[in-house]
Each structure stands twice: as C-alpha cells, then as structure tokens.
C-alpha cells in the first residue's frame, strides 16, 4: 500500500509543479506586477493601487469593456437561440440527417482566424457588390469600416462559428429525451409550443446553463475574430479587452498597467460566471 501511494505521488507532483510553474506562477506574477510600474524591462517600483485607479479612469479601457460586454451578451443570446433551433431541427425526423449534421458541425473544426479573414472579404467586397447589383443602399458600404456597425460584423462571424459547438451540446441533451413523453403530451392535446416549454426546455435546462456560461465566458475573451476582421478599428471602436491587454502589454510598454487591467478582467469574468450559474441553477430547480 505504501508503495502504491508513492507511485501516485510520483505521478501527480510533477504535474502539479509544472502546472504551478506555467500557469499559476505567471498568474501570481501578473497580480504582483499590477502593483508596480514595470514596463516589461528595466527597473520598477511599487505604486500601490495606482494602476487600478488609472484603469477605471482610462477611457480606452472603458470603451473596451463596453464593447466586449455588448458583443458578448448579444452573441451569447443569438448563439443559444440559433443553436437550440438547429439542434431541435436536427433531432426531428428529417431527410439527409447525417449530411446535415456534418455540415452544421463543420465550423467547429475551422480556425477562427482564417474564418475571420474570409468573412472580412465578404463584408468588404462581396456584400457591397450584391448591394450595388440590387440597389440595396444599406449593403453598399463595408460595415466593418463603420465605427457604429463594425461590432455587428464581429457578432455575425462569432455566431457563425460558435453555433456549431453549442448545437453539439444541445443535441447531446435532446437525444436523451424519450419520444414517449411527447406522445403522451400529444394525447393530452398539447401543441408544439406547449411541448417545447413543458418538456423539451425543462429537460435540457442543464445544457442551457452550461451553454450560456461557456458562451459568455468565451465571448468575453474574444480575440481572433477581431484581429482578423477589424484589428480593433475603425478607431478603437471594436477593441476588446483581450486585444487591449495584448496591444498595451506587448506593443505599448504598459506591462504593469495592463496586468492590473487583466486582474480586473479576471474578476469580471468570475463574477459574471458565478451570477449566471446562480441565476440559471435556481431556474433549473424551479422547473
């Protein structure tokens, strides 16, 4: 028994150390540097909470937070509505079942960055051409070039990509629901709408919770799509928090300052995830 214990320790301790060295230690360092004025090179001094206060006063950071929230909330809602509809469709009695399922999951395997580049072209060249050809004024200009509309382009690409994974999750939930339940409901005279709200939705509630929390968390970290579509522009209108930390930290010599921003960002994500879990779990229980 003694020997067995030591084997388990020999296995887990290196894993623990490696994880600490490459994940937790950098995180702790980030927190440490957030209280200094380090530029990423040279000397540094402690500055207390100055970086944090400055982040709160920083308009660029404020705009990045506003944009990221707006984007993440709209994208989360759209992705969940669309993927739930697609999953219900794929789970019903349809033709070409396998082919359709394969097509709907396809975006999940593609690189977001490259998908973003392709959509960049669609927004910049393809849609304006269509707009010109049909005389549709609203399509003739590239929405990515408009500070007020560029975020919609990013939502479209993010949703296009994310629907596939969320559909997989919803479908995993839907296949566990027995057909008998629907038949019994039909006999009782329940319509499609009643069946959805009384049977489908309550039974996939845990999947709804996971999807909402995961999609919001992932969308709050949006990076690749923005790099490929707008690079944060026009102006700074689509600069997400991740992009701001990356730019300021690596290109702007704001190592310590952006570390403070990263800590705030981390707290925001945790708070959002916990609130969501509490709220959604409560709803699950009531159902």
């Amino acid at each position, binding site marked *: 028994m003694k020997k067995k214990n030591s084997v388990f320790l020999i296995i887990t301790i290196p894993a623990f150390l490696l994880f600490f060295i490459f994940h937790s230690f950098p995180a702790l*360092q980030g927190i440490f540097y957030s209280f200094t004025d380090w530029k990423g090179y040279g000397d540094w001094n402690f500055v207390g909470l100055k970086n944090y206060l400055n982040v709160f006063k920083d308009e660029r950071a404020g705009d990045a937070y506003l944009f990221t929230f707006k984007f993440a909330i709209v994208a989360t809602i759209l992705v969940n509505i669309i993927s739930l509809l697609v999953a219900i469709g794929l789970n019903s*009695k349809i033709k070409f079942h396998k082919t359709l399922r394969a097509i709907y999951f396809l975006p999940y*395997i593609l690189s977001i960055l490259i998908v973003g580049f392709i959509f960049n072209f669609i927004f910049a060249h393809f849609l304006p051409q269509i707009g010109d050809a049909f005389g549709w004024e609203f399509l003739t200009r590239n929405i990515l070039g408009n500070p007020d509309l560029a975020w919609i382009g990013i939502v479209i690409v993010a949703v296009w990509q994310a629907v596939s994974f969320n559909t*997989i999750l919803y479908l995993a939930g839907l296949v566990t629901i027995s057909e008998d339940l629907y038949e019994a409901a039909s006999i009782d005279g329940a319509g499609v709408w009643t069946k959805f709200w009384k049977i489908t939705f309550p039974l996939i509630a845990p999947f709804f919770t996971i999807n909402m929390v995961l999609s919001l968390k992932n969308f709050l970290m949006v990076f690749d799509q923005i*790099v*490929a579509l707008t690079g944060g522009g026009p102006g700074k209108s689509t600069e997400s928090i991740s992009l701001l930390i990356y730019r300021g930290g690596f290109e702007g010599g704001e190592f310590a300052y952006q570390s403070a921003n990263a800590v705030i960002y981390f707290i925001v994500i945790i708070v959002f995830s916990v609130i969501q879990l509490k709220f959604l779990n409560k709803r699950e229980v009531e159902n």
Partner: protein
Amino acid sequence: MNRKKTSWIVTTLLILGSLLILFPLYLTITIAFKTPPEMAGNLLALPKSWSFDNFAQAIEMTNFFNAFKNSAFVTIFVVIFTVLTNSLVSYAIARNLHKKFYKFLYFYFLSAMFIPFPIIMLPLVKQTSAWGMDNLVGLIILYIVFNLSFNVFIYIGYIRAIPVELEEAAIMDGATTWGVFWKVIFPLLAPMNATVAIITSLGAWNDFMLPLVLLSDREMATLPLVQYIFQGQFSTDYNLAFASYLMALAPMIIVYIFAQKWIISGVMKGSIK
C-alpha cells in the same frame, strides 16, 4: 421514431440554413482558383479554368510546407503526450479523491479553467523567453500542461465509473500500480482517449493566440500564424490570400470528411461529462 413522418418543412429549413455555412467555403474555393480579372467579372461564378498558379505562389510566399510541418509537429506531439500524461494524472487523482492532497489538486486544476489567458499572458511570455522556451517545444509543453484543466475534469468522471475490483484482481496477479494503469485502465479509457485526442488536436491545430505571443522566430510560425503574417504583408491580392487560406483549412476539412462521425461523437462525449 419510425412512427413519425419525415418533416419536409424542417428538412428544407435546415438545408437553407446549411447554405449559410457552405457559402463562405464555396466562395473561398472559387476565389482561390480565379485570377483577379476573372474575379472582377463575376464574383459568384465558377472559375473558367481551374489553375493552381495561386496555390504555387502562396506556397512560396507563406513558406507553406514549413508552417504545415510546424503545425503538424506541434499537434502530433501535443496529442500523444496529452493523452498519455493527462490520463495518468487523472487516474492518480481519481483513485485518491478521498485524500486531501488529491482533492485539492482536482479543484486546483478545475478552477484554472476560469482564468482568462490574458491574465497569465504577459508574465508567461517573459518567463518562457528567459528560459529559452519561445519555440515549438515550449509551445508543446505549454499546451500539454494547460490541457490538464479540462482533461482532468472529463477523465475523472469516466475513471470513477470503472470498478476498482478490476484493478484489485490485477494486483492479486502481481501487477504494480504502473502495470495496472497501462494494462487495465488505459485500454478501458479508449473512448475518452479518443475524445481527448480529437479536442486536443483541434485546439492545437487552430490556436492562434499562444503561437502569436510565444513564438518570435518566423521559421517556427504555425499555419494560423502564417496566415496572419501573410495577411499583414500582402493584403491586396485576394486570390493569393484565399489560396493560402484554403490550404490552411484543407487538412482539417479532409480529416473531417473522413472521420466526422467520430469527431462529432467524440466532442459530444467530451461536452456531456
């Protein structure tokens, strides 16, 4: 299920919806084969002649084969070592969850899933470059370590459903803990190993952010990173760019066409746990 009639309305709607997914890919393929004047004529039409000139030029300009080699190297080693090490660590934790240290480890790894990458990004890059890890090997090590968070979660759920009696029988026959794992547990983990391998390979192959911040040497650029550098330098020739995108996407699409059944069910299994 058979008692119900095929719903043609739903089928039609889904087919229309699937066009939204296929259309950007159609555009990518056709543009990659066209010449600039051809594209100016009619964007939607099929290319008049399927010429591979764009591809030849893109291969040269992006140093495609080098990037492909880098991506393949990283992905293959990450998948192999992730499956071997992460399953082993999960096993050690799963069989000792009643002990404080292992329980702590379990929650420690899990909680890391909620730490956004930007918070560790800046110090991590300083640290890895100071240690000479700003290369492909460093990238591989980081992926394997970072994967622990999610994999511990899905492996442990599965391992705990495997009866301990199986292991006890093997131990009675004189097997060591080490032997028990490789001879009894690891083969039983096959479905989870496949799931982890699929999710890990997709993650390593498509990741952009970690190579972007970690790799300083251009020779080491992976496929997504090459597209990014390429895009920054030659953004005017769309036919060339699309040939390059298509080549970067093609390997995964080809694998997907042949293995989509396993890929979908693998991801599904991973996500239910």
